[in-house]
């Protein structure tokens, strides 16, 4: 008989409120080693709040959050929240993750070696002395992933890792994340990008205040679940074995438009 390892994080019947407004309710979620989970949902559905609960900075008003002893979590914020004119080099950003020894602000040889190893792993070692603004979108995202990885996390949490990036950069990021996950790193990310990201993940959660669907994308991404999650009609097509989500055209509006054009 094999013993299942203790999960990294387990949420049971979690409820969160901002003031009197309930933003999450009845959340049950288990995150195990090497899991790769995407959270999808409309704006205001509670995605960021759920990430904050997982990070431990938002205590729920009801329910329980159980963490494995010694759990280390790395966090990658949305790049849109970064102050890109801040005078820091790539190396300085990555080093932020390393705690400072008392009265020794300068990094030691070991710190520099660890930064170089992490940047090399992500393919950006040559950028260590560059200012963060002088990088491409994909390189910028890698810098913040490197900072999170320097703390040797068991779980990486990312808030919208592909927001505001082009298609090529999105491909770069999703491949990088898949490689890190294949190395055994568990990941949870939030995303708005259903076709570009969510359908490529092994497990997704449809969230709108509560979990409306969870599982592999092919099982979860149905018109019913998507309509319940987003409050708008959507169709799910299939291409090369992958689901593709499209907005369902509003026939009435379309007809009106054509008839106006004809007149």
């Amino acid at each position: 008989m094999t013993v299942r390892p203790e999960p990294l994080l387990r949420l049971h019947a979690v409820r969160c409120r901002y003031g009197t407004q309930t933003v999450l309710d009845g959340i049950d979620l288990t995150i195990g080693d090497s899991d790769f989970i995407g959270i999808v949902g409309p704006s205001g559905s509670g995605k960021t709040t759920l990430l904050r609960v997982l990070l431990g900075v938002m205590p729920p008003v009801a329910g329980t959050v159980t963490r494995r002893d010694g759990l280390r979590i790395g966090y990658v914020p949305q790049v849109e929240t970064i102050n890109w004119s801040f005078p820091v080099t790539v190396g300085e950003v990555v080093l932020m993750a390393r705690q400072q020894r008392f009265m020794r602000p300068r990094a030691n040889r070991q710190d520099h070696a660890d930064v170089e190893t992490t940047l090399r792993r992500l393919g950006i070692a040559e950028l260590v002395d560059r200012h963060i603004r002088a990088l491409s979108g994909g390189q910028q995202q890698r810098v913040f992933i490197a900072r999170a990885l320097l703390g040797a996390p068991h779980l990486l949490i990312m808030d919208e890792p592909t927001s505001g990036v082009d298609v090529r950069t999105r491909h770069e990021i999703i491949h990088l994340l898949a490689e890190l996950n294949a190395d055994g790193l568990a990941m949870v990310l939030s995303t708005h990008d259903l076709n570009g990201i969510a359908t490529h993940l092994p497990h997704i959660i449809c969230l709108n205040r509560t979990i409306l669907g969870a599982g592999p994308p092919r099982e979860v991404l149905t018109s019913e679940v998507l309509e319940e999650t987003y409050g708008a009609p959507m169709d799910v097509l299939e291409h090369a074995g992958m689901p593709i989500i499209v907005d369902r055209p509003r026939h009435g509006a379309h007809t009106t438009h054509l008839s106006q054009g004809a007149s």
Partner: protein
Amino acid sequence: MMQWLLDPLNYAFVRNALFVCTIAGGLCGLLGVYVTLKGMSYIGHGLSHAIFGGAAICAAVGLNFFVGAGIWGLASGLAVARVTRRRTIGADAAIGVITTASFAFGIALLGLYARVKQSIEATLFGSVLGISAEDLIVIVAVTAVTLVVIIAFYRPLLFTTFDTDVAEVSGVHTARIEAILMLLLCGAILASMRVLGVTLIAAALVIPPVTARMLTTSFNRMLWLSSAIGAFAGLIGMYLSYHLDISSGATIVLVNFAAFAVVYAATSPARIRRRSRAFEQRERA
């Protein structure tokens, strides 16, 4: 030139003033890096005005300036930090509400007590000529404490200044770090206020880091450069004040501004493009 530099050193009070202005300029330049990068440039202006209220109370009740104004400034700074953390109120609005109320309180006391008026004028416009031994000790002590704290908390300070939310998630006590920064700032303003004056201290906090930022893309180098520019402006500004018989606060700020203008012109994109074109032509030749 040597005479221009050496003549003022014959007087003990000018030597004191040169020392205090240089240290105060460097100290404001150093802390100004954190203030400007956190987008709180207005805080120096606000806190100096808040401390003015405390100074007015000290003069009215005969309390020691540094003790009374220090406690008052500290309370104002912490109140600003606390109000700012409530996200519905922006930092600029929090500073505006708390510090201007304190300044208005000082002005009201000015109107009520004649003796307050005399001692407060020096606080408002700065006076280097009457620098006491106590002022020298305070500026040296505040600078030493600031340096020790910045070295001791270098990375948490940098992380909190760069990205407060992620720093908090990563285990940095950001509220504590912000409170420490506010304490250092209050100390620096308090120690520098007599030489720079309430009305001009904000410039000493903002101009050196902005100038330094145009010269470097490294945080570490920005700290050194900003301190050096601030100290240089303090020293030269004080010399100018002595030779031209102008208020020291004004000359220090004007030297700071001159440094800013020179660096701004030298690092303008058009000039950099011209320089790189000339370099390319030389390379081709």
